[in-house]
């Protein structure tokens, strides 16, 4: 059996709308189109055409860390918010700073976060970030107490609409520390 270009485009379009999670080109190839032999290049081409097509529509096809998904255009956020009773959560400055430290300086311990912010990190903040699925423990620093090292997750990238950490807007590099030798060792990348 064969799928022509139009059928391929249509079935990928339908799949991305009905899938519960974003899908990569490889997932489309191996899961959706397992019964056909469709090259990765053809799938990529169909995805590019879909992106093009939806440029002037109310939704757009975007690529995030875990694949492609359709989502509403940001300019309609205020109107679409009317569809839900609950307002989207807003996060405190303390939470955003903690998340920023984990995103930009990962992997990082809670103690290191506290050193930078000059204030103890509330357990509630760490809990909220973990419940959102934005951060996770990726190991331990081999110092006394073996503190947990935190990093951001794929869900974090998906929820903030980026493909990978290199897409985070740049911030100043940490100045070389004179005393805290560990602070600069753990850069992203």
């Amino acid at each position, binding site marked *: 059996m064969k799928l022509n270009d139009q059928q391929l485009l249509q079935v990928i379009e*339908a799949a991305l*709308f*009905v899938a*519960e999670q974003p899908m990569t080109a490889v997932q489309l190839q191996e899961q959706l189109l397992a019964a056909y032999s469709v090259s990765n290049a053809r799938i990529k081409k169909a995805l590019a055409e879909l992106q093009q097509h939806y440029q002037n529509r109310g*939704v757009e096809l975007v690529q995030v860390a875990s694949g492609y*998904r*359709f*989502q*509403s*255009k*940001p300019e309609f*956020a205020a109107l*679409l918010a009317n569809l839900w009773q609950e307002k*989207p*959560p*807003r*996060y*405190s*400055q*303390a*939470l*955003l*700073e903690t*998340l*920023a*430290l984990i*995103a*930009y*300086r990962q992997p990082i311990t809670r103690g290191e976060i506290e*050193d*930078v*912010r*000059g*204030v*103890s990190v*509330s357990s*509630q*903040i760490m*809990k*909220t970030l973990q419940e959102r699925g934005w951060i996770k423990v990726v190991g331990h620093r081999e110092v006394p107490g073996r503190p947990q090292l935190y990093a951001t997750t794929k869900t974090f990238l*998906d*929820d*903030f*609409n*980026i493909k990978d950490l290199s897409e*985070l*807007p740049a*911030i*100043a*590099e*940490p*100045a*070389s*520390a*004179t*005393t805290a030798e560990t*602070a600069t060792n753990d850069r992203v990348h």
Partner: protein
Amino acid sequence: MNSEVIGKPQLEQGTVKQAADPHAAQQPLPLGFVRGEPVIERPQDLYIPPHALEVILESFSGPMDLLLYLIRKQKLDILDLPVFDITKQYVSYVEMMHELNLELAADYLVMAAMLAEIKSRLLLPKPAHSDDDDELDPRAELVRRLQEYEAIREGAQHLEQLPQRGRDVFVAHISSDAKAQLKVVPPEVSLQELALAFSDVLRQLDLHAHHQIQRENLSTRARMSAVLERLEQQRYVAFAQLFTRAEGRAGVVVSFLAILELVRESLIELLYVDGQQHLHVTLKSAATVPEDAHEAE
């Protein structure tokens, strides 16, 4: 909703971006609300309406944030940290917090102590032969920390501005009747798995049964099945019909061995059917107990 998600005295909708970096805000934007009254700016001097103080202090995310605010308010460069002025102002704030019994005071006191220590070290005469001023400047570590904190504040602001799922963009998801078409897919087994399972059985036998099994040519066993199957279909089969010339000598030998083994295992018997000249083969049971139901053709 948990306590980290701000629900109480709120920044106005629409001023999020500016409010996220109060240091950068030049124009009067409400910082927060105290009993319904907007608090337009952080205080220009140390006089603060008492009921507003708590809200203002709470708008700082910690001692680093307060310190950075004080430096920025005076439009000073972090690199030339004006320790004397800043320490004085900082301590005034902390004293107010202390009077109001704000919980965060402890973290702020640590910073106050650090500033006081830097100040006292700056007052001490410099050692005569120092060749590296930077390294000895007691402010260096604090400056480094302020720079790092400032970078992170900027990072937090970037995160705040990224299009966030559920706030700025919503994932499109539509229904599909496809789920109804799910079919049950049975497990796959490979030939290798099957062979492995058989060798496992053999290994167990080797351990427990001391080679009691007979090892036979596999094709003979297969032929035995085929003969039995044929006899299930047709009660009497002429002996000669169980051999296929096309299979050649090897095939005939296999068929013959299969028939012998079936006879040995008392599964079939050889006999002359009434009125027929040739030797016939039949299932042993069929010879004695007619099973008409099985008779085809």
